[in-house]
C-alpha cells in the first residue's frame, strides 16, 4: 500500500531525511521510532504529500504522490503532530468539514462522522468548540478526523501524545485492531507502545534507517531482550554529540 523509495529531504545543507526506503502492506502496523529531530515527522509529511521530497518516490496504493497527488491523498488518513484543529469549530463541525473534503455527503457523511465519534469516545464533547477541549480530547478529535473516511492508509504522528494511561491503552488497542485491514504507520517515543501495537519497527536516526524488523527480531539483538537497550545502543552516540 505504501511504498517509499530512496526518499531524501534537504533543508539547506542539512539532510533531514537521507535515502529512506521501505514498504508497508495492508495488515501491517509499522512503528516509527527515533530520537527527537531524527526525521520521523519530515518523512511522514512527505508521505502524506504536505512537503515535497528533494528526491525519491512515494506511491500510495499505486498512485504516485508527486505526480498524481489527489488519488493518493484520498487513500490516506493523517494525524499531524500535536493534532491541529480549527479552534473556533465544534468537534462535530470539524468532523463534518473533514468528511466533506473527503467526498462524503448527506447520509454517508452523517454515518461516517457518527462512527468516528463513537470510535474515539467523543460523544460528550461533540458540541464543544475545539479550543475548549482538554489535550486528550483534542488529540482524539484529530484522530477521529483521520479515521472519518475509513482510509486504507493511516499515518499518525505521535497518536498517544498527551493522553492519560487509560486513553493510551484504548488508542493502542484501536490501532492494533485497525491494523488488521489497513496499512498503518505511527511514530512514538514510547517503546512499550511499539511492542504492544506494531507488527514491524523502523528505527530512524539522523535521517537514516538504522534498524528495520519485527519487535521480536530487534529485541533479540540485546542480551537482555529489551527493546530499550537496542534503541539506546543504536541511537545514543548521536544524541550525546548534540545532533
Amino acid at each position, binding site marked *: 500500500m505504501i511504498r517509499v523509495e530512496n526518499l531524501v529531504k534537504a533543508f539547506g545543507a542539512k539532510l533531514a531525511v537521507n535515502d529512506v526506503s521501505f514498504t508497508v502492506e495492508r495488515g501491517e502496523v509499522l512503528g516509527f521510532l527515533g530520537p527527537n529531530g531524527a526525521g520521523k515527522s519530515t518523512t511522514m509529511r512527505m508521505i502524506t504529500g504536505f512537503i515535497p521530497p528533494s528526491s525519491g518516490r512515494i506511491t500510495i496504493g499505486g498512485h504516485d504522490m508527486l505526480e498524481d497527488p489527489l488519488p493518493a491523498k484520498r487513500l490516506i488518513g493523517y494525524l499531524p503532530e500535536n493534532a491541529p*484543529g480549527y479552534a*473556533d469549530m465544534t468537534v462535530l463541525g470539524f468532523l463534518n468539514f473533514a468528511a466533506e473534503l473527503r*467526498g462524503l455527503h448527506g447520509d454517508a457523511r452523517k454515518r461516517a462522522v457518527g462512527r468516528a465519534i463513537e470510535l474515539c469516545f467523543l460523544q460528550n464533547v461533540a458540541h464543544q468548540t475545539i479550543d475548549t477541549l482538554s489535550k486528550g480530547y483534542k488529540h482524539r478529535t484529530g484522530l477521529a478526523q483521520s479515521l472519518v473516511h475509513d482510509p486504507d492508509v493511516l499515518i499518525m504522528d505521535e497518536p498517544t501524545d498527551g493522553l492519560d494511561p487509560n486513553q493510551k491503552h484504548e488508542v493502542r488497542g484501536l490501532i492494533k485492531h485497525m491494523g488488521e485491514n489497513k496499512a498503518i504507520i505511527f511514530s512514538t517515543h514510547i517503546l512499550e507502545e511499539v511492542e504492544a501495537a506494531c507488527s514491524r519497527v523502523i528505527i530512524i536516526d539522523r535521517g537514516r534507517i538504522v534498524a528495520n524488523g519485527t519487535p521480536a527480531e530487534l529485541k533479540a539483538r540485546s542480551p537482555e531482550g529489551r527493546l530499550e537497550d537496542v534503541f539506546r545502543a543504536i541511537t545514543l552516540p548521536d544524541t550525546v554529540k548534540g545532533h
Partner: protein
Amino acid sequence: MNTWANIKTIVKRELGGYFTSPIAYVFLVIYLLLTGFFTFTVGSFFERGEASLVSFFTWHPWLYLFLVPAVGMRLWSEERRLGTMELLLTMPVTTWQAITGKFLASWLFLALALALTFPVVVTVNWLGDPDNGVIFAGYVGSVLLAGSYLAVASMTSAMTRNQVISFILSVLICLFLILAGYEPVTGLLSRVASPQVVEVVAAFSVMTHFEGFQRGVLDTRDIVFFASVMGFALFTTGVIIRNQRAG
C-alpha cells in the same frame, strides 16, 4: 464538480468561522459606523445638496486600506499558527482550491458588510432623485476594490504566521496601490518625471480605476485591472505556500 464541492466546503467553514466568534459582529459594527461617519460628517453628504453617493464611495479606498487587511490578515497566517495548514493541504484538495475557497469566503463577508450599507441608498432615494445606475456601478467598483485589497492581504498572510506583520505588510502594499494614483502624489511626481511616466505609475493605482465606477462607468479595462490584481496576488499566494512547503 469535485472542485466546486471542495471550494464550497472551504467557503462554508471559513464563513462559519467568522460568525461563531464575535469578530464578525465587531467588524460589521465598526465598518458601518465608519462608513456612516465618512459619508455624513467628513464627506458632508447633506451640505452637498446633491442626490448622489459620491461622498459615500470616495472614502472607500481609504476605509478599506485598514478594514480589508484586518479581515484578510488571518487567512493563512492563522492556518500556519494552528498547524491546520498541514491538515488542509494533506486532504484531497489542491492548493488553489484552498486559496480560492478562503478568498471567496472573506470576499463574501466583505460584500455582506457592504450590502448592509443599503440604508444610505434608501436615504438618498428618499431625499432626492439620484441616478441609481451610477450607485450600482459604485457598488460594483467597491466590491472589486475590496477583493483586490483582500487578495493582497491573502498574499501577505501566506508570508508569515504573525498576523500583525501580515496586516502591516498588506496595508503598505495597498497604500502604494492608492498613492500611485492619488492626486497630490501624481502632482508631485509630474514635477520630476515626464507625463508618460506619471501615467504609467498611475495606471497601477486603484484610484485611477475606481474613479470610473464612481462616475457610473463600467469600463472593461477597469474591471480587467481589478481582476488582474486579484489574479496576480492569489497566484503569488500559491507560489509562496508552495515554496514554504518545499522548505
